[in-house]
């Protein structure tokens, strides 16, 4: 049976997914590090468009195996059925369905919905800084909307309001 070339869904050779994310400095002011709008997605070809233009395509960088005939059932099932579901940075595919119809990749912090990077198919995920879950309950220190992040602790400092 003929083998297919690996597509550009995969991560380029030599790149390891687990090295790309740096945990953020918790005190970084929000909105100051090139954060993009969740409700405006920056299509790499068209620019910023409303999220309703786009459709979600699941986890990115899962290449279709080219040697499926020699794979075990469980290895194949891993490709078909199993996806990571992190609370934190997630590389995922989006399609500009109501626009240019192009597929591309996004790095999104699932704890806060921040879009940390947008990059084309075939490109490596850029290194990003994210406000990752840090507390014992697994909450981001701010922004996740859950109980643990509602009130400033005694040792936390404020910021960004026009306070006294």
């Amino acid at each position: 049976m003929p083998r297919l070339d690996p597509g550009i869904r995969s991560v380029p050779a030599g790149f390891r997914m687990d090295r790309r994310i740096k945990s953020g400095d918790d005190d970084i002011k929000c909105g100051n590090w090139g954060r993009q709008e969740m409700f405006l997605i920056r299509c790499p070809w068209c620019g910023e468009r409303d999220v309703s233009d786009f459709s979600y395509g699941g986890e990115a960088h899962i290449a279709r195996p080219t040697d499926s005939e020699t794979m075990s059932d469980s290895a194949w099932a891993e490709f078909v059925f199993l996806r990571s579901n992190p609370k934190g940075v997630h590389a995922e595919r989006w399609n500009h369905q109501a626009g240019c119809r192009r597929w591309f990749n996004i790095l999104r912090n699932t704890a806060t919905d921040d879009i940390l990077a947008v990059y084309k198919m075939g490109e490596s995920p850029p290194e990003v800084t994210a406000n990752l879950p840090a507390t014992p309950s697994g909450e981001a220190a701010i922004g996740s909307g859950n109980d643990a992040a509602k009130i400033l602790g005694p040792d936390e400092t404020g910021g960004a309001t026009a306070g006294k």
Partner: protein
Amino acid sequence: MSKTQPYRLPKGGRIDRGRTISFSFGGWAFHGHPGDTLASALLANGQHMVARSFKYHRPRGILGAGSEDPAALVQIGDDANRTDPNTRASEQEIYDSLIARAQNCWPTLTYDVGAMNDLIAPFVPAGFYYKTFKGPLGNWMWFEPFIRAAAGLGHAPSGPDPDRYEAVNRHCDVLVVGGGPTGLMAALAAGRAGARVILAEETAELGGALLSRDPEALRLNDAAPVEWIAGVRAELEARDEVTILTRTTAFGYYSHNFVGLWERVTDHLPEAERPRRLPRQRLWRVRAKEVVLATGAVERPLVFHQNDRPGIMLAGAVRTYMHRYGVLPGKRIVVATNNDSGWDAALDMAQAGGEVVAVIDLRADIAPRHLAEASQAGIAIHANATIVGTEGRHRIRGVSVRAMSGAAASGRPVEIACDLLAVAGGWTPNAALFSQSRGKLRYDGAIEAFRPGRSWQNERSAGAANGAFAMADCFSEGVRAGAQAATAAGFDASPPPAPRIVGGQAGQGSIRVVPELPSHVAPHRTRAFVDLQDDVTTKDLRLAVKEGYSSVEHAKRYTTAGMGTDQGKVANLNTFGLLASARGESVPAIGTTTYRQPYKPVTIGAIAGQHAGDHFAPRRTTPMHDWHKRQGAIFEPVGEWLRARAYPKQGESFEDAVQRESKAARTAIGVLDASTLGKIDVRGPDARTFLNRVYTNAWMKLAPGRCRYGLMLGEDGMVVDDGVTACIADDHFHMTTTTGGAAGVLSTLEDYLQTEWPDLKVYLTTVTEQWAVAAVCGPQSARLVSELCDDLDADPAGFEFMTWRDAHIGGVPVRVFSISFTGELSYEINIPATYGLWLWEQVLEKGALHGITPYGTEAMHLLRAEKGFIIVGQETDGTVTPDDLGLGGMVKKSADFIGRRSLSRSDTARTDRKQLVGLLTDDPNVVLMEGAHVIETAAESAPPVPMLGHVTSSYFSPNLDRSIAMALVKSGRSRMGDKLFVSRRDGAPIPVTVSGTDFLAAKDSATEAKNG
């Protein structure tokens, strides 16, 4: 009622005294002035009680003066299709002939049967609903009818909404929420920097708290407050980049500075005067680079025994009624406070002519200024005192006051007669939007309240919303916030100076928060309300803690505190305080409940906007649609399409029409509008390779001019789509998909092309709407097609099955496909869509000689079932493989395709999967129900009944003169001829015999056997 409005002040207020408006409340006529709210007009008439509470039906009065009011809810309008329940009397502006009614009471406001609930209150404790649900089933059954009848907040409109609504999308640099002193300065600062600004004010007029101050006593830049406000408004209006929205509530702060605004455009006008060009309400979907939250502060009531009587109002609200509406809601007034703002309010009321008989302060240390001013005004002073009870049924008549010693009531009670009790329990920064934006709150001990702590999104809170209650601080924080926001949005800001203030207001000063005012009443007899809408008392909250529901989120749900339509705007902090004291902890230690959108109830109409009626979902129709309509077709939605389901004749039932149409298509000739089939134009040198990878069968050798049926799988090996693809040229194919699956198939194919096989040179174009399709079917169809076409002999001898030809009809180029979805001789004529209706009419005109019958999708379904052809989505449900359908022969061995590897997974390859078979009922007239379960035994065993599968398609076939059905049955193909049973709801299981799925072939071979 008289026109005198006995509680109207002789002068002042932002009302038009030159005009008198007549409106009705609870069937009585009242009078007010333009500029009044329903609440201010009712108060001017001395009407405090306007509603009854939700649970106990206790009399409820007007507590607040704006959106914070918890319980003065009324029903507006008596047009069954145009009535609004749960409208706050304090927000509804009055107009001529406005009709309002009290809610939660029957038969009248003052005599209410449901008030019986109040008498059984001891039996309706905290968590009543939960306990009833958790208890024996019978409890709920017994209580339910009573609760249903007694509960409920107003009633919903009963018919379609006759009004029009609009949605507006806007981007701006700076969104300022709140048009009070802070918001005005913020908008001015951002506007002068050149930023695109939206200023949203909830009420009818800009000014906020400035309108609640004595205009004689306040000067801003030497001008009266309203003049100063008018000046600011004029400057903002003169700026092209500034939009001012009044009667507009920011109700939701969503991710990434997306804010929903709700504008009431014409609700304040009499129905006859609402301009038809304007929508009733608008939803503004604003994406703001920066947001300034200048949403002010909400005053808290005090929590004491019998604190829920009409005539007990927030002190700040009384000042608003005095100065904004020219109403002093009482003649003999007592003020109870725990901070300085109550004293300012008391003085204000005295100066407006009210007889303020006493100020009760929880604090022992009171600023000498207040003591001096009060005694000068002849006000009795009760410092370090508590309220231990009140009197009056439908309106307060008196207050009982005692001294406090430590945290207990002591001394002899002093009874004070009054008709208005103004309470000042301290101010809570209105941080609802801030919290929705996921900012972190900070507990500020100086004001004993939460205020914005750390922002998460690009917003900043300022003024009272930020805990700065003094007027001067509001102005300066507004300037700073507006300038900061403009700078952050990329503008050079030169902040305007804050106005010079004469007679401004200080903050609330020191505050002594007592979660529940002490009294001599035994705790179990205390009726001290924390949430006036949901009837939650301190006793309920203490009980919740005692029973273990001590977390704020649990206690909220267990008691329903803060769960009403007001979301506990005035109640929440008092709730937290009470829970904290019951737990012996501090308020910041127990935390806060979550603020959620919407800030206040928004009409469904506004949210739906234009997406109502025909605009609810886009409907696609074919070029022949008008013809179908003229013929009285019954339509069905298929995906986004509307398809003709059948064409009943005059007096003919739907079922009869389907039988007639199905019969005609096999005995003479039928025609189906097949235009909705998905069509994808596949081009490029690698088109063939591509098809070979996306379909299970082989495509490398399909010659131009030929067609092939293909099955498409997901990577999980399950069938997702099917259709016939024609080879136009070596590098050009015409693919068809299911009607509903077209968009998804195109998207999936694009995905593979762009991301998995970018090396393939293939281009996909959707051409579904470029071609109209008439499918003619029946023994006479070849003759008709030949007659229709200028240049095609359709005789199957020369025009082979599964091939296609270019031809012309009346000179118009067409593609004719000799393919069949019925098993009958059949042709699909594709014509450029603009000729679709013309083609259809040609077919019917020329077909008339052959007795042509148009048939709809239901006959099409029936006809294909007679032949055993599947419909993806009917025979398949995402768990069905080609082999399950008996189509294993369509799976090639030679090359990879989407889903191939999954077909050999152990679960997919096992032989006892559910397989598609035919089912023939013993009684040919019994038609099985689609979806019914197939079981093995004549009687159902005890549950769980072992299930073999289910019926996927079932019809009465006019051509076979019996019922037919297909079903997915476990190991179905090895059960041929077996007797099985199909369960049904009311009756014994129906006996059936397992058969093949090609019912026509079975009939033919049976006929042959008989004849042979």
